[in-house]
């Protein structure tokens, strides 16, 4: 094996996040990501995490890793969510070979953290995001302030997609909320949505989306 464990981990993370990012890019239509699609994306991250967090890392041949890396190009070329689903399933199959964990729906559902702490606080806050968006939209409408509706729909859909993933990761303790992160949401990002004008509304959503995406894409600790 010519790759170091770090390189392998980085590769796995990069390819999986590319798939995730591609899913985000495809979210331009008015449709929100369905619950099954959300679950599949989460599954991919769970499998990636399961492989990456092993110590020592399983023996992955160069050939195998190259096949995995090649899928990154495939991902970039997908034009529909159905195409992306096929690639994602291939990624999951590849990853499944290198760990023995069960990520069936039932298992995931029941794998609740016993020590929620900060994660619970972050989740409680994020569950309020939709309400804040609603409230601001009403306010903007009542006050006659305009904004780019298409950009709003697209950004909001992406936000809600990444938020859903993050909520699950927090629930399962696969992500760790921090005091700084919580304060960022509570004191800056959410108030920004609530107080947004027509000009800043979409940006306030994308700021929250980017913040959450950053939390999701942070490599799992080993």
């Amino acid at each position, binding site marked *: 094996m010519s790759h170091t464990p770090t390189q392998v981990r980085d590769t796995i993370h990069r390819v999986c996040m590319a798939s995730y990012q591609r899913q985000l890019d495809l979210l331009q239509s*008015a*449709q*929100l990501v369905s*619950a099954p699609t959300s679950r599949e994306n989460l599954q991919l991250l769970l499998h990636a995490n399961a492989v990456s967090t092993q110590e020592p890392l399983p023996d992955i041949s160069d050939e195998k890793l190259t096949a995995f890396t090649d899928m990154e190009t495939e991902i970039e070329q997908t034009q529909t969510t159905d195409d992306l689903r096929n690639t994602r399933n291939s990624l999951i199959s590849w990853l499944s070979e290198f760990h023995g964990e069960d990520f069936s729906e039932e298992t995931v559902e029941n794998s*609740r953290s016993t020590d929620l*702490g*900060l994660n619970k*606080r972050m*989740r*409680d806050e994020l*569950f*309020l995001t*939709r*309400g804040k*968006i*609603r409230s601001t*939209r*009403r306010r903007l*409408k009542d006050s006659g302030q305009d904004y780019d*509706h298409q950009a709003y*729909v697209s950004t*909001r859909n992406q936000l*809600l997609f990444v938020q*859903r993933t993050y909520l699950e990761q927090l*629930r399962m303790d696969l992500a760790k909320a921090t*005091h700084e992160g919580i304060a960022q949401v509570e004191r800056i990002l959410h108030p920004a949505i609530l107080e947004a004008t027509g000009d800043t509304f979409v940006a306030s959503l994308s700021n929250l989306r980017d913040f959450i995406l950053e939390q999701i894409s942070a490599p799992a600790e080993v």
Partner: protein
Amino acid sequence: MMLARFFCTVLITASCFLIGKPALLAQYLSNDLNRLATNVATAQASPSDSQALDELIATLAYYAAAPNTDEAAKLASGPLLLAHYADNPAMVQFFNEQGLDTLLRNYEPSDTLDFGFLRARGRESFLRRPEAVDLFSTNGLIDVSKIQNTYNAPRPPLDNALGLAAKDASTPLSTEPDASYISTALTGLSDWISRRAQEELTVTFLNRLREQIRENELDHLFPETANYLPSLNLINYKSILPSLRLAFARDLNALSLNLGNFLYALDADSFTDPAVYNLFLVYRLLDLGARDVPLSEILAFTYGELTETRRNLRRSIDLQLADQARTSQRFGPVRDSYRRQVDRLAALEEEFQQAKLELENEYLLIEDREDGFDLLAPLDSILLPVIDYNYANLLFPDDKAPEVIFGWLFGKQPLDYYLDNPSLSRYDQLFGPDRDSLSERDLIAAGLTGVRELLAMRDRPHQLYLNLLAAREAIDDLKERVELQDRPEPTLLSIKETLNERLVLEQTYFRHKEADSLQLQFLRNLLAETLIDQTDKDMVRRELMSISDRLDAFSEEKAEPSPNYRRMHPPVPPPASYPELETLLTSVEVEFNQLQESLSAYSREFAGDRIRAHRNAANFETVFGLGQQMFFLLYDQEEPAFSLSGEVEVAPSILLEQQFANTPAADLTDFAPTGKLTSYLLDPAINPLVRGLAYERLSKVPGLGSLNAPAMGRLLMDFTEGLYEYKAAYEADSTANKVERRIRLVHFITSTVSSIVEADILADPLVPGRAFSLANHLPGFSSLPDINDQLDELFAHTQRGDYRYAVSNLVKLVDLFNIIPEPNRRQQRLIDERDTYLEELRDAQPTPADLVLEDLALTTGEAISPDRMQYLESEIDRLEDRLDRLDTTRMSRNRQQLFLYGTFMADVASAESPEAFAGALDAVALPPGSSQLKRNKPFSLELNAYFGINYAEEQLNLPNDFNAAEAGISDRSGSISLFVPVGLSLSWKGSYTQKSSYTLFFPFIDLGAVSAYRFDLGQSQNIERLPQFTFQNVFAPGAHLMYNFAKSPFSLGAGVQYGPSLRRINLDGSPDLDVSAVRFMLSLSVDVPIFSFTNRP
């Protein structure tokens, strides 16, 4: 009447126009009723009159939400108001009868409706529920410092509160006798015929009074007398009579107030017994009323005090339980059950959050449409309560997360939780210079309080679930409508093709059934002849639809429709549901039962009495809450009109504050008069509205449960009559002195409480049409009306100086309070047993207050079985029956003694003349006719007098050296005299059937002895015919055997008696010689028993 209302409203409306805003000038009952009636009439005549409907909505929203103006503004919508009043039967009747259900169904008021105007400050003062610091800051007449001190000072020990309240309510007396009474008293005494005997009797009686007072805790009832008597030498009672009378008068004057101390001394628990607590509240109200505190403030203060009491009790309950936490086996199960429940609630919370998330997504997608906001707006009332709800920590308030309470239950601060949720205030609380130094006990108590708060919200998850289901259903329906709306209208060609396809499939399926096949072929041919390129497209469409309908009818007739038809018409899906959520809800409910059971067992063992007291205070809170709402509703005083011209740029609320800054709080003159209310109630169109508004307001009282709409009219009338009786008394005699004012106030308080407690305002949710009152429903409240009646009379009689009547009331109250003087062991055992059953029965009966008790239930929440209930009731009856029969003599003797001594004190205190004073003493002597006692009883012992005549052979005891013959006198002679001896008589009968009786009489004085007249006139001119009137001459010890004639006061007797002690013999030129005599006597006299030692009346 309608015309008058119309003009009234026209005036109001006209003034609104002048102001230029859709303002409602004032809110008070008659104005509002008139306005509503006129607006209804206008809206019926002209449904497009938005102003009438706006005002209607504004007024109804005001009654639904006052004093919360924001809440009223939220309700200001036709559909929302209809939904809000849907549970109010009287209002539903009103809406239906007036056609408002149709008018309001889709009506939204104009945007300019400004709810800042919905303020009636004087009226809203009745709804105040001030915190301690807010109390009494507006009225300069009030003894602010006293009341604030009372309120803010540390609470007195709970078990002495009654006595303190009684003390507070006492004010200096107005009817104390003056000091000049001494002459009257002495003059009266001088007229007493058997003065000496009666004096002895009086002393004896006073001694017995002193003992009785001491023995029966009467010293609390008659404290002045009790303080005065023991320090006196009663032998010299004449000199102290005026002061004694003063003490009597003071005690009797304060009798109704001393009753509280008396009950306390008898161990009556002020807070657990509603009857006693009622007394306590009457004192508090009286105290405030006597200080000229306005009615609204009295209500607010009392309400605040009740709440404070309940909170204090609440704190003390959990502190008391925390004391046992270390040692009690019952505490562990509470903690374990709580931990399990927290886990279950966390899972439930997660399910709710996910369900909310899905619902929000659907909402957002619909909102994205161009018409999204318009589509969603009508559903806001259903959807927003679900998607705007914060499910975090589901049932826990912000500062008491599950982990916090769990930490407290272990007596520790939940530091891990605080580390995850840091704040400066928390830091200061934990580490700052003024940090809380909470003991382990304090923390456990706080934890227990948290557990109770959690239990108090046990119904909320189910309600949240119902909301969720309703929201889900609403959004599903909306989605379906939107899909239909979005679907392009099919072309005629596609309809025809689809129909043809269906017909082919059906015909294939039914090909073996000739008749069906023929029927289907008929339709196919018909379809073939329906040409879609005809000019009249609508007609073609109708024809196609008719064929489709017939094909549907064909398929529906079949027992087994074709697979194609079944595919086209799948079974109706079940209503929206969340199976996982339902499972979790069930498990949460099960654990709540477990938690409540373990907490109840723990509480019952260590704090049962305090919990009952807490319950009691909460029940009275309900009663006072009802009072507040009634006063608010009946408020009918037009408040100063205000206007907002365009020139004044001041927020309405600020302007209102300025205008009402000096408005005194509402008082009795501000309520709808009886006649006005009657006219409303007799108007069939308005009657349901009035009852509906009453229903609406009373439903604001926490925890009352289902209300009985028909009873609202009666309650309103009773209440109004009470108010006007009180008001009329003022108007008739505005110069009434303080005492009269207090009497009226007590009457008003007691009758108002009774009218609330006795009104059939509660409806049985299980038996439609069955209604009951708080007196029926609340444990221990049934005797309140009787007690209040007696208390009212007692107070009036004592204050007016009608003490004799007051004593009757007192004895009745002692009965009503079920006071048993010094129960013996057996009685005590029966009492304890009865109380145990009573407690179980009362604890098991849910009370309205249970809903606001923050779950201080003493039971597991499961209803007591009817069999057990019946058993408890029968046991209580049996034990009370035994108690009644047990030692009845002693019981009735106690009551009689109370009556005897009370009336004696009353008569003495009321005596304004010598005759009256003599009458008082007469009353405690045996009454006329008591001579029959010794003729009817087998044995008796009396202090007795006789009044009659006797013939006696008198033997003078001359000195030995005295020569009677030389002196020319005889030492023996017959004499006739009055026979008025006083002494002890011992009487008996030979048998039970004997009508007459015998008496052995031992006189010690004889007032008639001084009248002994010697017959020997010739020889005894040197001897006084009549002895001189000295004590020695009335001192006449002796013995007589008397025969008492049956059915007659006469007695025939024979006996010997010493005296008259001295007769003076005047020998010529010699000094006087005093000699004594012994008399052998025959007597015929009237039997006058003075005092019986064995037969008391």
